[in-house]
């Protein structure tokens, strides 16, 4: 008999093929805190035929907005999103790294003007997608440690 470590969900989102080790960052991105009303399941270090090891996050009764998808794409560019409606996969797609990134990351340069309380959104040009490397349009600093700087 097949053993389910986590049961299927009725409605919500399954984020699959998350780069191993990134599940907790994904939780932070989608804003899972104590006050959520539905179940969130996290699987870490799951065997995967495609990539060896992966993480999975299942969020019940919740679909992600485009900004959240962009953030997930930046820290885990191969993640797949499964939108579940009434136990069926209603939509399935691989996240897509955007060409420019606005307001969802802080600049890794502590001397950058965008880290100084100015009324401006950060903005980056995506110089490479896999692995992601982003150049701040203000100070020109290139950030590769995306997970540390996603807000």
């Amino acid at each position: 008999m097949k053993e389910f470590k986590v049961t299927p969900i009725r409605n919500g989102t399954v984020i699959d093929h998350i780069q191993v080790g990134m599940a907790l960052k994904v939780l932070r991105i989608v804003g899972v805190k104590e006050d959520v009303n539905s179940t969130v399941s996290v699987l870490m270090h799951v065997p995967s035929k495609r990539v060896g090891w992966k993480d999975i996050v299942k969020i019940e009764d919740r679909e992600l907005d485009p900004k959240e998808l962009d953030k997930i794409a930046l820290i885990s560019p191969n993640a797949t999103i499964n939108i579940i409606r009434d136990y069926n996969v209603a939509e399935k797609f691989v996240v897509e790294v955007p060409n420019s990134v606005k307001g969802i990351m802080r600049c890794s340069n502590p001397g950058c003007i965008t880290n100084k309380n100015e009324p401006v959104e950060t903005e980056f040009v995506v110089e490479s997608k896999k692995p992601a490397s982003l150049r701040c349009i203000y100070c020109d600093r290139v950030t590769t440690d995306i997970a540390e700087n996603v807000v």
Partner: protein
Amino acid sequence: MSGSFQGMDVVSIRDFSREQIEHVLKIAERMVPIAKGEESSKMLEGKILGSLFYEPSTRTRLSFEAAMARLGGRTLGFDEPKGSSVAKGETLADTIRMVDAYSDAIVLRHPQEGAARLAAHFANNPVLNAGDGAGQHPTQTMLDLFTIKKAKKKIEGNHVVVLGDLKYGRTVHSLSEALAKFGAELTFVAPPTLQMPKEHLKHIEAMGTKPKMSSSLEGAIKDADVLYVTRIQKERFPDPAEYQKVAGMFRIDLAMLKDVKRDMIIMHPLPRVTEIAPEVDATEHAMYFEQAFNGVPVRMALLSLVLGGSK
């Protein structure tokens, strides 16, 4: 090229094509007699430059003021934020919006990197970057290029040896990229801990130039056409003895110049401390005071272009 500069911001040398830089240098050449006071001009009469210096600066600030005055314009602003609304905690964005309303262009020096790009975002009028932290200082780069072109007739093909603190020195980062854009040959001479950062090397190599790296000056300067010297800052060294050793190795004096090309020029963004001995000032190699003067015609050219006085 006609009209393409009016209203343009001067934030980073990377925003300029080689043709655009050449155009600025051509206009700067025409400005020299006015900059020297031999001719007078009312090209920017009635125009006001807002001059915001959040950090001390002598040459850059005074040469911008001189440039504006020589073209018949006026300057208002501050040379330190103390006593201005900035000291009360006003954001840069708000200060820029205010000064933008009082003036026709803004020149900004600020300790934070990216400050000029942010100012350009909030200002309707052109913003000229006079140095933002360890970031860009494009008008310095243009006056350096102007100095090389004037002395050597062309920029491409010259062997430029860049010496000193290449890690933190902002002038050498943008200058090296611009020189690579013009096809100059580059050698970087610095103590290993202060060599050119990889990120800048990547940009330079992307333009088709493969710079040489060295930690010894003597070998590198023999066939140099231009020696660009920068200050090595004491505070970068935890051990004062180590600083003394490095500073001594990279000091330019008459003995060091024994075997160099006769027409090699020595440049320095100034201020210098001990890296060029005063005895060098009297030689034909010394170009740094002329370089400092060149800040005026080059800034006149940029101001006249962005304010629509020149085409």
